[in-house]
């Protein structure tokens, strides 16, 4: 598809999963004849209907049996196919984690695992449907690439890039329909890269998923208070972009990570791991869920409690900046 302002707007209305499955998937399917799609009774919810109609014999309905689905995907990959297995992030990274470890990670099977409803977008469905530990679980699996796009356009690009990676990939799709636009123009998506999307001196905010938009708004608010903040999109969480991080660590006194995920084992941890050997490292603030489940409510309600709205991020970083003497 051509990337025009109108198309970017249309994608944002479809959201990350709608865009990835209606555009990224259909384009990738033409390029990769071995690509097939497995769903656990979520074809309609996740927007797989166009693919199913166009490629009925490359669509595999597994029913509500995620563990079986991951095993089937592994077996297909062992026979040379490129299965894309998809369901909620929570049912991938928690329910089917062992199947992924044993059958996909340990054999480096070429399975593309696409999770939908990352973070707490399934807000009122309750904790069962949230995914606030999935990055930690998936990142711990040897050989697993972890991608987490920030908006619908990046979701399309990440989907296609994932299909060019040899080996298992976890694509973490955030939000529902009407995903805020971060990228207003076309850009080059490089898997493995942390990409600067806003200039600013003082604080470097590294965010992933829907938190990139919140971080941008927080940076604008901070600027109004005379505090500069650059914003980076960590669309690839594993392997982490150590070269980019080294530059960021050298360029500022305060680094903040923001993720719709627990602060244990996610993006913040990946950044901390990269920073650990550094002498004279900048201060690091990790913003995410603080080892807790909040009371269910709307996504914004939960973000507010957890400190993940732009306002809460800005307020927290204003304090942290003053403490760091910025």
């Amino acid at each position, binding site marked *: 598809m051509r990337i025009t302002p109108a198309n970017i707007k249309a994608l944002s209305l479809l959201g990350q999963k709608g865009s990835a499955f209606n555009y990224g998937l259909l384009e990738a399917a033409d390029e990769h004849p071995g690509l097939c799609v497995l769903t656990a009774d979520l074809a309609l919810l996740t927007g797989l209907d166009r693919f199913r109609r166009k490629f009925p014999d490359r669509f595999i309905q597994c029913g509500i049996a995620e563990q079986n689905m991951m095993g089937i995907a592994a077996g297909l990959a062992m*026979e040379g196919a490129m299965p894309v297995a998809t369901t909620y992030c929570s049912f991938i990274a928690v329910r089917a984690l062992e199947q992924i470890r044993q059958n996909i990670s340990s054999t480096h099977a070429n399975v593309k695992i696409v999770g939908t409803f990352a973070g707490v977008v399934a807000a009122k469905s309750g904790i069962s449907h949230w995914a606030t530990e999935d990055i930690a679980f998936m990142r711990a699996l040897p050989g697993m690439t972890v991608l987490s796009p920030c908006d619908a356009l990046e979701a399309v690009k990440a989907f296609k890039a994932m299909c060019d990676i040899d080996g298992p990939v976890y694509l973490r799709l955030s939000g529902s329909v009407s995903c805020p636009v971060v990228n207003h123009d076309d850009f080059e998506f490089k898997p493995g890269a942390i990409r600067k999307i806003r200039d600013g001196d003082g604080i470097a905010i590294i965010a992933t998923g829907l938190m990139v938009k919140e971080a941008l708004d927080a940076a604008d608010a901070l600027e109004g208070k005379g505090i500069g903040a650059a914003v980076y999109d960590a669309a690839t969480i594993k392997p982490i972009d150590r070269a980019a991080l080294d530059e960021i660590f050298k360029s500022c006194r305060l680094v903040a990570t923001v993720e719709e995920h627990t602060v244990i084992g996610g993006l913040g941890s990946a950044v901390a791991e990269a920073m650990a050997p550094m002498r004279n490292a900048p201060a690091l603030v990790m913003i995410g869920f603080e080892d807790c489940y909040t009371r269910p409510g709307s996504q914004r309600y939960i973000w507010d409690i957890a400190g993940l709205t732009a306002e809460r991020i800005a307020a927290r970083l204003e304090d942290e900046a003053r403490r760091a003497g910025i």
Partner: protein
Amino acid sequence: MVTGDLEQKAAQLRAMARRMRLEGLEMAWSTGRKGAHLGGGFSCIEILAVLYGAVMRLDPAHPLDENSDRLLSGKNHFTLAHFPALCERGFISRDELLEFQKDGGRLTGYPRNVEIGLEYSGGSLGQALSVGIGMAMGMRRKGSTGRVFVLVGDGELDEGQVWEGVMSAPQFQLSNLVLIVDRNHLSYDGDTEELMPLESLDDKFNAFRWRVQRCNGHDTLALLKAFNSMEGADGPCVLIADTVKGKGVSFIENRPEWHHHALTKEQYEQAKAEIMAED
């Protein structure tokens, strides 16, 4: 195969099974005081002898042949049967067989290695059938004529994921898939029917629309006939093979403590004598 030929083949397979049981015993003996999974290994010796000696289309010179049959098992405890079968077919050498627990060895821990006929790394129970279903689908998609055989232990049927697979294989019309249940009636803690009853297994598989066969899993002729009757099936087939855990050695048969155990010198000698004296 006409009846006479079939009986002759069954006799050859009995001899093969005896050699495999002796090799399995040597493997167990080679572990010294560490011990090995004799019970669940010896219960499926004849099943694997029939598969590797007659049923499965395999060529160790071309292990990656798209049209080869595949065997997967969740129960890594069958190594004392599987590695001797692979040795009989020329996938691995006898020297390697006796180093099956060597540090860093390619048999140690049963890692997937298609080059030597290890299609699947099991160990965590209940997952092999799902992977076998995926392989059967993948083979059908690329036009491979091979079949996928999945061996499960009966205790393994306690795992819920097995039944996800059992439910899905007929839906996907996988006529190139064969499931074999090593029905030895014992899991680690005791009798399956006391622990977590499984019967009637025939009815369960019938209800899920599988083509069901059941036979004595130590009778090579019955096994041959059962596998032969699956040729040309229009959907997935299951063979419930009634077996004896630790089959072939009197003091190991049906004894839960021999699930994993070390042999004394006297036990090793007695076991060897009993296996060699077998018909």
